[in-house]
């Protein structure tokens, strides 16, 4: 294996809360410019893995390297300049304009006393244009639709200018059109800007259709890692998610009604019954 082009590297990483490990002995190498999904049933350790990778949680064993540097040796600012995280949803305690929210993406670079400069403002407007939010400048971010808010959070990550962008369920609140829009945008950020994209996804169908590499997590361990056809074969879906892939409804997207259709009709919707 070539060692140099790994932008993120986990070696034997375990971690969790209190004395209980949730993630066990995870090995994972992500090369610069890769685009991958981390999938797994509820409680598989996806969120814990995300917290470990972003340094919010210290591993109990193993080592994490970002761009060749040990994560544990980096300050919070330094991590934030390398890894941007798009949360599922954020809440704002006060009303704020779209551009005021996106400007927060420059905080990792901000001098505490001097504040942001003209270069930062230019990067913020470029980020707003990049995700296509130009028409919403000046609007209260709390008044936007869920899809628009997701794009605002994505623009924050773009302004953050980090090599790695990690997304926590970026499409969970979105209808099918916005799901496609967000995934297209991620592909574009990946292909044009060379950003490494790691998306934690619930929706296997969406993951398989839009991302070339799938990492399957189960019981806190990586149980598969590869292209969708390989990582998500029928046996593994049966083992990991406890459903028979045959129950997957084929095709008719129009079947998804209104708000409930925010989640596309995929096999995960039957997990509860089958498990």
């Amino acid at each position, binding site marked *: 294996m070539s060692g140099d082009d790994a932008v993120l590297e986990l070696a034997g990483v375990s971690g969790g809360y209190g004395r209980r490990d949730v993630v066990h002995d995870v090995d994972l190498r992500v090369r610069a410019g890769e685009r991958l999904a981390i999938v797994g049933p509820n409680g598989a350790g996806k969120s814990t893995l995300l917290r470990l990778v*972003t340094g919010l949680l210290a591993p109990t064993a193993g080592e994490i390297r970002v761009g060749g540097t040990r994560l544990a040796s980096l300050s919070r600012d330094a991590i*934030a300049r390398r890894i941007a995280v798009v949360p599922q949803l954020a809440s704002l*305690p006060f009303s704020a*304009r779209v551009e005021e929210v996106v400007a927060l993406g420059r905080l990792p670079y901000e001098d505490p006393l001097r504040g942001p400069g003209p270069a930062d403002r230019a990067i913020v407007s470029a980020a707003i244009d990049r995700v296509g939010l130009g028409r919403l400048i000046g*609007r209260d971010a709390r008044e936007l639709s869920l899809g628009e808010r997701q794009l605002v959070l994505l623009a924050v990550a773009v302004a953050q200018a980090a090599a790695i962008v990690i997304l926590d369920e970026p499409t969970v609140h979105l209808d099918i059109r916005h799901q496609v829009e967000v995934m297209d945008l991620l592909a574009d950020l990946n292909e044009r800007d060379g950003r490494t994209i790691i998306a934690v996804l619930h929706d296997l169908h969406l993951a398989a259709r839009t991302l070339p590499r799938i990492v399957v997590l189960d019981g806190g361990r990586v149980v598969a890692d590869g292209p969708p056809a390989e990582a998500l074969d029928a046996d593994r879906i049966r083992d990991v998610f406890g459903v028979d892939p045959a129950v997957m409804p084929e095709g008719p997207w129009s079947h998804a009604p209104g708000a409930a259709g925010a989640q596309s009709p995929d096999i995960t919707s039957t997990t509860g019954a089958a498990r």
Partner: protein
Amino acid sequence: MATRRDAMAVQAVIGLPLPRRRPTVVAVAGIVGLVVALLAGVGLGSVAVAPGDTIGILAHRLLGLNLAQTWTPQAETIVWDLRLPRVLEAMVVGAGLAVAGTTFQGLLRNPLADPYVLGTASGAALGAAIAVLIPIRIVFLEFGLLQGLAFVGALGSVTVVYRLARVGGGTQMTSLLLTGYAFGSLLAAGLAMAMYLSGAALRQIFAYLLGSFESASWANLGGLLPIVLIASLLVLARARSLNGLLLGEDAAAHLGIDVRRERAILLALASLITAACVAVSGLIGFIGLVIPHVVRLVVGPNARFVLPLSALIGAGLLAVADIFARSVGEIPVGVVTAAIGAPFFLFLLRRTQRGYEL
């Protein structure tokens, strides 16, 4: 039914931009207001001093200018020894409460937070009540005791709340808020007991609870100003952390903020400011709650602007409230701020009737 709510919904659909003014414009307006409040506060009263004389006395005492003395020595005593320290103390307390309020609202990510939310108010009140009940009856020493115990009470209660809220290593903001409420209630019970037992001293305790600048002096100001000024500047230097917390604690960490450390430092600074303010003036409400919201409506949520502008507006407003309190026969200034602040806060609530989700 064409209600106001419908009108608001229509507005949301059309998507009107949030109004904004340039921070420099607000700063200039605030400074002008502050100077006017200073001259009014020093000139107005039972003995009126002409604005020209007021400026002359200030120039004479502050800058050592040798002007033609158009004023009487009594006027100079009234201006310099009585009214000026009082106006300045009101301004410093107003600025301090506004900065502390901005900080607590940002830290707790709660628009309803104010400087007293973590038990500072009840701690200070209990301290003051105990000072009143302790049978030392030397008047000027008693003042010192009251202020000292109020200061200690305020800081002590925040410390206890912070420690109690630390469950399992981390401190969640909601747990801090709830612990503050619970511990505050406990202290309030102690205060009620002290008031019940106080007999003739009840009026003195009550006066403290309502807030006043009657006892303002240069000595008080000398203790208050350095604490409020230095702590406020240190808070301002951490505006970046408050901005990061806008999107939540995890998001702040992902944006490069060491949340645990910054929270502890900001909490300590804001509590110190609050304690210094309540020690000299008693409990003055609504300044720390309302002013930051007003400023945010005008310039946006960036703490780099909200902190200094809130300080400016808070200083001016509390000075004016105190002039009013004084001119209608020494009513407690806390009554005035509540009378202005509560309706205004209701107005703000109606204007921003939506959820806090992004």
